C-alpha cells in the first residue's frame, strides 16, 4: 500500500486539517449512490420472503392457496399455529433446547482450558494443539458423517440426543478456541504477573482473571454454539431416527411432507421454530454481531 501524499500535503495544510477534525468520519461511503440503492434492493429481497412467511402463516388454507399470497390476510387466524402445536411441536422444542444447552456447556468446559493453555504456555505441544484446531475449522461435517455413523453406532448412542450433542459440540470447538484465545490474548501480561506475585495458582488466575475478562468472547462462543446446535440438520438426520428424539430442524422437514399443501401450517411451524432464536437475538445482538465482525479484522 503506498499512496504518496507528500507533494500535495504542504500547500494545503492550512485549511485541510481543521476541516478533517470537525468531521470525525468523513468520506467512508457517505452518499455512495450505488451502495445505497443496492442496499434498498437487498432490503426488499430480504423482506418479501419474511413478510410472506408471517402473513401466510396467519391465513386460512384456501386463502393462501387461491388468493394473492402478497396480500394481507383478510381474516387472520391462529389455527395454523394450533395445528403445529398439536402435531408434537413442544416435544421437538424440548429436544432442541436440551441439545443446545448441553452443546454450549460441553463446548465451554472443553474449549476454555484449551484456549487458556494456548495463550499462557509456549510449549510446542500447545502450539501443535492450537494449529490442529485452526485446521479443524476447514473440516466439513459432511466429510465425516459416514465414520461418525459407525462410531456413534459402536458407542451405542445411535438414535439418542447424545448422538447429536457430541459431534455438534466437537464441530463448534475450533471456532470457540479461536475466538476465546483471541480475547484471552488481550488480557495483559502484567495482570497475570501481579496475580502470580500474590501466589495465585493457575486455576485461580483462570477463574478470577482470564474468564471474567473474556466475558465478551465467552458469550459470543455460547451464542454461536447454541445457534449451531439449534439449526443443525445433518447430524440429527443421520444419527437419530425415532420420533421421541426428533429435533426442530428435522421436525420442519417432516412437517413439510406431512402437511403437504397445507402451506400455512408449514410456515407457522417455521415461525415457531425461529421465535426462541429471535428472542436471543434481541437480547444478545451485540455479542453476536461483534463476534462475526471480528472475523474480517483478523
Amino acid at each position, binding site marked *: 500500500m503506498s499512496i504518496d501524499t507528500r507533494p500535495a500535503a504542504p500547500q494545503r495544510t492550512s485549511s485541510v486539517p481543521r476541516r478533517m477534525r470537525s468531521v470525525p468520519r468523513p468520506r467512508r461511503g457517505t452518499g455512495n449512490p*450505488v451502495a445505497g440503492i443496492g442496499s434498498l434492493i437487498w*432490503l426488499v429481497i*430480504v423482506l418479501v420472503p419474511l413478510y410472506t412467511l408471517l402473513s401466510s402463516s396467519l391465513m386460512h388454507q384456501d386463502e393462501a392457496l387461491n388468493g394473492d399470497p402478497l396480500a394481507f390476510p383478510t381474516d387472520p387466524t391462529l389455527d395454523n399455529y394450533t395445528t403445529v402445536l398439536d402435531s408434537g411441536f413442544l416435544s421437538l422444542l424440548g429436544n432442541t433446547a436440551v441439545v443446545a444447552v448441553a452443546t454450549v456447556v460441553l463446548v465451554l468446559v472443553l474449549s476454555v482450558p484449551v484456549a487458556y493453555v494456548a495463550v499462557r504456555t509456549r510449549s510446542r505441544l500447545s502450539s501443535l494443539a492450537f494449529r490442529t484446531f485452526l485446521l*479443524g475449522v476447514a*473440516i466439513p461435517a459432511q466429510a465425516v458423517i459416514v465414520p461418525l455413523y459407525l462410531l456413534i453406532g459402536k458407542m451405542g448412542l445411535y438414535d439418542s440426543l447424545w448422538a447429536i450433542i457430541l459431534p455438534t459440540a466437537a464441530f463448534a*470447538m475450533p471456532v470457540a478456541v479461536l475466538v476465546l484465545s483471541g480475547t484471552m490474548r488481550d488480557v495483559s501480561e502484567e495482570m497475570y504477573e501481579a496475580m502470580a506475585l500474590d501466589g495465585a495458582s493457575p486455576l485461580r488466575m483462570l477463574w478470577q482473571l482470564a474468564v471474567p475478562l473474556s466475558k465478551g468472547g465467552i458469550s459470543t462462543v455460547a451464542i454461536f454454539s447454541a445457534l449451531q446446535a439449534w439449526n443443525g440438520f445433518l447430524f440429527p438426520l443421520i444419527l437419530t431416527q425415532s420420533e421421541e428424539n426428533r429435533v426442530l430442524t428435522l421436525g420442519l422437514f417432516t412437517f413439510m411432507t406431512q402437511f403437504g399443501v397445507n*402451506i400455512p401450517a408449514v410456515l407457522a411451524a*417455521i415461525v415457531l421454530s425461529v421465535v426462541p432464536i429471535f428472542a436471543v*437475538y434481541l437480547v444478545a445482538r451485540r455479542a453476536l454481531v461483534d463476534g462475526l465482525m471480528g472475523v474480517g479484522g483478523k
Partner: protein
Amino acid sequence: MSVHTPHAERGGDRKAAVGSVGRPPVGWAVPGILFFALFAIVPLAIAVYLSFTTWDGLDSPALTGLDNWTRLFKDSEFGQAAWLTLLLTTISWAFQTPVALLLGVWAAGRQRSRAVLSAVFFIPLLLSTTAIAVLFHALLDPNFGVVKEIGPWIGVDPNVMGSSTGALLVVAFVGGWQFMPFHTLIYQGGARQIPEVLYQAASIDGAGMIRQFFHITLPQLRHTMTTSSVLMIVGSLTYFDTVLIMTKGGPGTDTTILPYLMYRTGFQTYDLGYAAAIATALVVVATGLSLLLVRFSGFGSMRSTREGM
C-alpha cells in the same frame, strides 16, 4: 534465578523465570483435544480407511483395495456431481462477494439508518438452513407459491424449480439469501479497520469516490476477501441441506452436488464404502481450494495490509 547456563542471555533468563510462575499445566488442554480428535480428526482417518472397503452399514466393513477409487474416477455421476459442486460454489461466490462487499462497506458507515438496515439484513442468518429451504420450497411452489404472482414481474418462470439451470440458480440464491449477512458483517468489520488517514490522503490528492474504492478500499480488504472466500468455499458444502429439502438432487440429477451424492450413496443405497470415498474426495477438494486461495492471496505469508505506511 539460581542456575545459570553459560550461554543464557540475561534478558531471556529473567523472562523465563517470571514466565514460568503461574503457567497452567499443558495437561489442561488434553480433554478438549481428545474430544475434538475423537469426533472430528479420527473420523477423518476412518473415512479414508472406509474408502478402501465395502460396507452396507450392517456387517463389518470388508477391505476391497482400490475398487472404490477406480470406480470413482470412471463414475460419470461422480464427474457430474463434482462439476455441479464447482459450478454452484463459483456461482455463489460470484453472487455473494460483490453484494456482500458493497453492503459491508456501505454498512461500515456509522449512520443510524445503516445500523437499522443492518439489523434487518441480519435476520436470515437466524433461521436454520432447513427453515429457509422449507420456506423457499413453499414460496416457489409453482401452483400455490408467491412465485406465481411475483415471478412474471421480475422475469422468473413460476416453474423455475422444474428446469435444471433454474433449480441450480435457486439453490445458489437461497444460500446467498441466508449467508449474505454473515459475509456482509465480515466486510463491514474489515472496512472499519481501514485507517481513515488513507482516505484523507487520497481526497487531498483529489481522488474521487470511485478511485478511492478501487485503490484503497479494495486492496485494504484483500485479507478480508480471502477469509470470506475460504468460508464461502467451505460453506458451500452446507448447500446439502438446501438440495435435500428443495430439489432432492433434481430435476433428474441436475442439482446432485457431491455432498448429496454422498448422502444418497451412503444412506439411501447403503453403499457406505463408496460414500466414504466420495467424502474423502470432497475434503481433498475443499481443503485444496482453500489452501490455494490462501497461498495466492498472500494471506499465508502474513503480508501486512499496512505495508508502506
